[in-house]
């Protein structure tokens, strides 16, 4: 029933938008999709079943090599692999097919938002620390030269804000120590404005850290009857703006 409702909503949306005949690009939600950075392999490593199966076993992610779809894209000197369960992708394909729409491409909200972040922070020469919500938790992605080297989730249940800030600081320090890089950090906080304040403490002006957040020139209005109750999250807005930038 939920799939049917979503198919109908998709049809209605495209009809209302007067873009009948358009091809659809889908962004999968944060949950259920995983990514890894690989070194020493080429971007077509997952095109062959044998090399794909051999590699997937060593990826240390909860995806079964035979029950998942993986794609890899070059990123600086490395390759970023993004994987999803077949059942999940198939469910979304079914939704789109039921709406009788052609599916052009499937991407992931986080990787799309990260590419947008890379584009928007092109003037920043240091590393990037990106924080965004993942359910009730907070997710930290540390990026060096466009490559997401660290992706860590911090549970917030029962944790004081100060303790959360300390944990995040420890992770950042550990990464810098491991990589032996002590360059200024640019922070991008993908939270509602009220929550961003809490994480402003992470920005160490003495080390020339700075906040990279900038207002978007494009702010799409959510569509639907109850859209007012569910405004776009900053992460979603970042990803959608990334898609817009890539298309143009």
């Amino acid at each position, binding site marked *: 029933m939920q799939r049917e409702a979503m198919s109908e909503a998709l049809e209605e949306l495209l009809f209302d938008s007067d873009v009948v005949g358009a091809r659809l690009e889908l962004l999968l939600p944060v949950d259920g999709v995983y990514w890894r950075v690989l070194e020493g392999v080429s971007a077509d490593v997952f095109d062959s079943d044998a090399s*794909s199966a051999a590699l997937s076993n060593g990826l240390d992610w909860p995806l079964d090599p035979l029950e998942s779809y993986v794609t890899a*894209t070059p*990123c600086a000197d490395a390759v970023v692999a993004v994987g999803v369960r077949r059942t999940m992708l198939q469910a979304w394909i079914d939704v789109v097919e039921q709406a009788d729409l052609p*599916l052009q491409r499937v991407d992931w909200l986080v990787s799309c938002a990260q590419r947008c972040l890379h*584009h928007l922070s092109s003037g920043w020469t240091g590393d990037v620390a990106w924080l965004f919500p993942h359910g009730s938790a907070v997710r930290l992605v540390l990026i060096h030269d466009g490559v997401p080297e660290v992706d860590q989730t911090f549970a917030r249940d029962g944790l004081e804000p100060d303790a959360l800030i300390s944990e995040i600081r420890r992770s950042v320090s550990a990464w810098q120590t491991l990589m032996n890089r002590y360059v200024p950090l640019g922070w991008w906080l993908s939270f509602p404005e009220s929550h961003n304040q809490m994480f402003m403490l992470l920005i160490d002006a003495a080390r020339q850290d700075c906040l990279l957040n900038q207002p978007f020139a494009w702010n799409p209005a959510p569509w639907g009857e109850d859209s007012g109750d569910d405004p776009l999250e900053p992460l979603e807005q970042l990803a959608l703006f990334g898609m817009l930038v890539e298309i143009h």
Partner: protein
Amino acid sequence: MPVRPPMAVPDLLRQRRVELGLPAAPPPLRPAWVVLGMGAGLGTVVVLIVLTVYWQLLNRERSLQQTVARLTPLEQRVAKARSRLQKATTSAAKLEQDTARITAQLVSLRSGSAFLEQLRRVTPAGVKLQSVAVQPAQLSISGLAEPSSVAGGLEQINAFALNLESLAAVPIDGAAIQQAQTSDGNPTTFSLQVRIDPSIKPTPQQLRDLGALGLAARFELLKQKGLPL
């Protein structure tokens, strides 16, 4: 602000496309101006086709109008000629009818001499005719029958009637005795009605035999001229 090169875009449908035997990369999205250009091109082609067809139709109409204008006087001449021909045909038919009627009248007149000769030949010796009235399909004869040594008056009247019926123009039982009256020592008076079939015409040879040389010659002349008899 330096512009970084765009990062590669992942596509989670890539493996699925390969599984389904499709190209790994989706068909490229056409920019709006390309689609617009294709639509405009197609629209232009359609408009050009319509205009070409319209232009050809206009030319065709103009050519047909010229042909009509060129043929109009001829058509009028043909109509006039047809009308004259119609009139000529009508008058010819009328003339033919008149000719046939006149011809029929010419040959339908019974020859008086032939009739009298015929009447003479069929009238027995003892029968005297007092009056003979000739109508187109009927003869009315009245007269006297003198009894002779071989036949009485009534017998001679009967013989006269039988003789009349033997003629080609008189049908069988065509001669009817209307009245016969006899008294001792006097001739028998009688009157006869004889029906005549007007469609039976004598041949020129018969007419000649009966002495109607004029009518026979008329017959032959009309036949020579090819007139219907």
